[in-house]
């Protein structure tokens, strides 16, 4: 898809510094290492694992009287907090997904206009994917409101998901990254997204939320197309760079 990576003066490996690398390696032999073994690092982590508090809690259902009671009734014998936590996570992920696709679309537009690509990514499809992320975000707002839960609250799993995806966003918004580098990141985004929707459908079915489950299946069907297309474009772009396809 894009021009091949150039071969240049990369300085990061030891072969780039033939004199200093020999001195560094001989120095390691001349001086004794720090005493102890690898168990000490584990001991610190183990102790912290044992006493760590959790990131936070799942928000209570809304302020309307009887809301909590109604919700508990709906989920008799089950833990509604887990479902709410996961709905909140998906909502945040889809919302950030809109911004990620917006950044990717812009990058593709600029690359196309500069004639840097060997073939143009189908921008109209990316625009559709972006709109579908937004549609899924909206669906999750509606589901949370239906359960009486505040969709603006950040649930613990939404918080963790935000930490995990922060690097992905960083790759896409960096003007220096190539489209194929971005597509590799998008593949990770969509793989995670697909697996998460599958689990959400399962959870909704387990909790007797058939109507929600079928709406989630529609979302998953769209996400599956995102995944398949992104994977194909990514493979195509890398192979084009390697000169193995035309």
């Amino acid at each position, binding site marked *: 898809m894009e021009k091949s990576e150039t071969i240049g003066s990369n300085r990061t490996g030891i072969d780039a510094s033939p004199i200093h690398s020999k001195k560094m390696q001989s120095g390691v032999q001349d001086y004794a290492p720090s005493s102890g073994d690898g168990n000490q690092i584990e001991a610190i982590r183990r*102790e912290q694992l044992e*006493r*760590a*508090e*959790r*990131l*936070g*809690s799942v928000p209570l259902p809304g302020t309307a009287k009887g809301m909590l009671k109604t919700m508990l009734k709906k989920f008799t014998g089950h833990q509604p907090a887990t479902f709410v936590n996961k709905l909140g996570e998906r909502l*945040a992920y889809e*919302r*950030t*997904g*809109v*911004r990620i696709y917006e*950044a990717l679309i812009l990058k593709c537009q600029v690359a196309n206009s500069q004639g840097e690509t060997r073939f143009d990514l189908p921008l109209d499809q990316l625009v559709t994917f972006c709109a579908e992320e*937004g*549609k899924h*975000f*909206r*669906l999750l*707002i*509606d589901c949370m409101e239906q359960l009486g839960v505040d*969709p*603006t*609250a*950040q*649930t*613990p799993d939404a*918080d*963790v998901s*935000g*930490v995990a995806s*922060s690097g992905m*966003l*960083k*790759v896409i*918004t*960096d*003007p220096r990254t190539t489209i194929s580098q971005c597509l590799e990141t998008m593949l990770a985004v969509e793989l995670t997204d697909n697996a998460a929707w599958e689990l959400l459908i399962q959870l909704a079915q387990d909790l007797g939320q058939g109507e929600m489950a079928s*709406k989630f299946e529609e979302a998953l069907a769209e996400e599956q197309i995102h995944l398949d297309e992104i994977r194909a474009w990514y493979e195509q772009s890398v192979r084009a760079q390697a000169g193995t396809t035309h």
Partner: protein
Amino acid sequence: MTIKLFDNKGTPLEKQKFTWRELAGQPISKLDDDAYTRVRVILMNGVEQQANRFQHLCSQCNGTLREPLARIRRVEHHQQTMVNWLLGADHAPLETTIAYEQVAIEVTAAVAQQEPDAYLAQVYRFGLLEDFDHMYRFSALMDRMEGRDANNILQCYTDIIPGRPTSEEHRAPENDLRDHYDRKSALPITKLNALTIMSGEYQTRDYYMNFGPTFSDPVARQLYAEIASIEEQHVTQYGSIIDPDETWLEKWLLYEASEAYNYYSCMESEPNPRIKAIWERFLDYELGHLHMVGELFKRYEGREPAEILPDALPDPIAYQSQREFVRNTLNQEVDLRTDGTQFVAKDDESQQSLDYRSHINSEGSPSEAVAADYQWQPGTELKGRFARAS
């Protein structure tokens, strides 16, 4: 609870000890703790950081004080560590930025209302409206770059609406200087207020300078560069309200009193018992420092600390939503500008500032770009863009 400064000798310095384990203790919860707990954590990090910075400078200029400075400074450094490590790793840099601006707004508003000097109260209100605008710009960035809602951090205590436009805050350096209080006639609370706010702004400048380059989005990189520049202006402003004729030891004593006062304020309002215990412990540490510096003051200057310090700490800083005060200030003073050390109407702004601004904004304004037509709504602006499914 009243804290008497001269009766209470606090924790002796030799008993002020730490371990690595407690320095890197359990963080607060981003989701469950009250936003003001985070506000206090961030402010106290800034207060400790500024105490450390002052003590290093003081050491470079005062050979005889080097040893006591080194001993107290080591403890201050570890106090800062324990406080700053209370921020959990799930705070993304942009979320922490929102929290820093909340500190600037809420604490400056509280201080502006307790400041007895009318001119200095005006100085605080002037700076307040600028940090208020930064909050709006950063919230727009968070929404439009990450698809996240700044109110998850603010917890509805602080408004997200425009203040004095950031693009109009860029001034020529001489117009950021202010008249200083008179060390002989100013009330103690005036001196403590000045140190508190300068410390908060200084750490904000440093935070933006450290984290700005870690963003990859070009708008974010430019916006951090722009707002860091205003924070530098604010440090100039708040640094200049402090009387330059105070002696080094007088300043050191005031810094220790300011730290004690701020820990006292935190302690009085903190609902989280684990964090409250830290504020209580560190109030006692600061009283220990204050007592030591008081003895140095007597020895080297032949003066009594009571000449410059009150018998008891003033009423604590109020940690509560300042929405109404901020809105009133916004409605009445958004068009204020400066000419030298004086506040003037928009049309009377110094030409040097207009020239400086005209050039620095001449290739575009990131703060205008990021927030163009931005109106915060719960759950981000995307909630409004995507209509209900059925």
